[in-house]
Structures are given as structure tokens and as C-alpha cells.
């Protein structure tokens, strides 16, 4: 499943929904362009052309978890790793790199 759209079956299409991508028939002809807002006529036309499902734009992109949430989850995953334990530096390094990756801190200089 994508963050930005959802493949929605024909039965669940309603006027007002926005297409995330162009819809084509079996010959590759564009039926509806990306960004089109569906109305009753458009939905009926999709049904006639045998389209089973359409990529519908999500109203809001799935809320991305906040930094605190991400950090808390990483701390939970690494709950057996003690940051102060220098003997376990490899686990500690993996932990720091995953934090940099997840929190988009980039590579430390």
C-alpha cells in the first residue's frame, strides 16, 4: 500500500474522490487523467469499461510519526543495549546509525 494513494474497488468509489494516476482501458487508451475528480458519470463510465479498481488519492498523506515516537520505538527495539556499555559498541553503533537514518539526521561528520 502506498502512502499517497489507495487502490479502491469500484463499489467503494464516490463522487469527489481524486484519481492519483491515469486510468486506461485494456487497449491503453486513457479513460480518465490523473488528478481528475470523480463524478457519477465518470464512475458509471469506469464500470462500463470494466475497470475494477482505481488509485484514489488519500485525503491526507498518512500522518508520519513524530521524532519522539520514532525515538521511543528505536529505544524499545534496542532495550537490551546499554549505551554506556563500551563492550557492546557494535550494537551501539548500529543503534546510532538507525537513529540517524530514521530521524534523517544524515551522516555524522
Amino acid at each position, binding site marked *: 500500500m502506498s502512502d499517497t494513494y489507495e487502490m479502491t474497488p469500484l463499489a467503494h468509489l464516490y463522487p469527489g474522490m481524486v484519481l492519483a494516476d491515469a486510468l486506461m482501458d485494456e487497449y491503453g487508451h486513457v479513460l480518465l487523467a490523473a488528478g481528475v475528480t470523480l463524478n457519477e458519470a465518470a464512475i458509471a463510465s469506469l464500470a462500463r469499461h470494466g475497470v475494477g479498481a482505481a488509485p484514489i488519492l488519500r485525503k491526507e498523506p498518512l500522518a508520519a510519526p513524530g521524532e519522539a515516537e520514532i525515538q521511543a520505538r528505536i529505544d524499545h527495539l534496542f532495550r537490551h543495549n546499554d549505551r554506556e556499555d563500551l563492550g557492546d559498541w*557494535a550494537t551501539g553503533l*548500529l543503534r546510532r546509525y538507525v537513529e540517524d537514518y530514521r530521524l534523517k539526521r544524515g551522516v555524522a561528520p
Partner: protein
Amino acid sequence: MSDATHALSIEELIGGVDDLPSLPAVVMELLGSIEQEDIDTAVLAKKVASDPALMAKTLRLANSSAYGLQVKATTIQQAMTFLGYEAMRQLITAAALTGCFPAGRCPSFNDRAFWRHSIATAACARVLARRVRFNPDYAFTAGLLHGIGRLVLVTRFPERYQAVLSLRDKRDCELAEAERALMGLDHVDAGVALAEHWHFSDTMRQAIAFYRLPEAPGAGFLATIVHVAGAVVQALDLAGNPDELVPRVSAVAWTALGLSEEAWLQVFHDTELQVEEMAAILMA
């Protein structure tokens, strides 16, 4: 026998391996022949093609973005030409293995998370292997198979495994510890027994046997790759396990890979990209 609480012996375990699902004959051949060079690829392609489900899954894998084919392969023979025999052997094995254990025998065992972890470890091991110029196809298969012994334990002794999972929750320890405490052996022992029963190559058996102890003498580099790949997958939280626990990473194994932070972040990224697609194909 399965509700007993005594420690299991390897004999008991192996004695029951015959109750385990059998692999398609073509995969048995592939696993046994990993170091063998003189294989007739046309014969192999024909054998795979005689199992439509296996063929479809293999082709979808070959056409997945991880393998970056410009032209879609439509036959096994064609995919073999594009990707080479080695890669195809690994893909066929992956496609066959992921469907062959029954799910749901032990209610608390999360089959989906198990397979997601295995598939992600396979993807990460492959990415790592390319970085360190190790055979990526071996790495992929070893990553996929490293925990297979767990399925042996779950399938053979579902009630006892239920207790193992409860103990793990109670102690918040690694699963292998709980297995050892209640069954007297762990999934590594079971994996090695299965590897012998299924005639895996020595290379694969070594990787299964030593992935938790990569610094042991004679463990081999494949064990190092799988050890770190498994930990990376747990650290990236890719299996979808609420209680995921990153194990202690062997400093020897970490050092042996010798990657910079920049390289690691790229490995994380590449692994994440491939997992969803591969999981969708293999777990279909």
C-alpha cells in the same frame, strides 16, 4: 511426546523430521548442488515449469526491481539467460520454501512476522554481500533460511512452542534462550538437523549453524553476513513484530564488514526498498 516437558534430543527431532513437509524434488536437487557447476539449465527450467505455482512465483521474483531487468522475463529459460544460473537457483529455492510449511499450528507464533523477518534478512544479506563482494545469491538464500529451524520446532511441537513464546514474553529475552530453557535445544540445532535432512550444501549448513556465533572458529563469512543482516532487519523494525528485540551485534562481525556510516545508511535504504516487493511476491 509433544506435550512432554523433558529436553528434546537431536534424535527425537530428526526422527520427526520425516513428518515435515517435503520440498519439491527440483528444490532438493538445487539445494544439494550449490557448489556443483555442471547443471543442465534446460532440464532445470523444464522441471520448474512443470510446477505452475512455483514457476509463476519464480518469474515474479526475477522480474522484481531487486534484480533490475530491463526486459521482463516470461519463461524460466529466459530468466536464466538474463540473471544467470546461480541467481535463478536461489530464486527458485526461495519461491519453493516460502510456501511449504503449514501456518497457524501454534496460535501465538506469528508466521507472517517470521517470514517477513526471513525475507528481509535475505534482502539485506544480498545488499551487504554486493558491498563486500561476496556471492549475493548465497547470501540471499542463507538469509532466507537462517531461522528455518524455528519452523521445525513450531510445526513438530506446537504446544511446547506455545510455552516457549510465553516464557519469552515473561523474560523479555531472545527467543533462542527461551527455546533452550524449555526444549533443551534451540532453532539453530533444529535448523542444522533440517539442513542435513534436506541435504543443504555445507555452505548453507555452516551459515545456519553459526549465524548467532559468527566469531566462532570456522564459522565462515556467510555467517557474519547473515548475523549482521538479521540484526539490521530487527533494528529497522521490518518484520512487523511488536516485541522485536535487537540482539547483541558481534563486534567481530561488524568490523569484518568494514562499512562506513554512509554505506550503512545506503544499505538500510536499499533493504527497505526491496522488502515490501519481495514480501508481496513470496508471501502471496
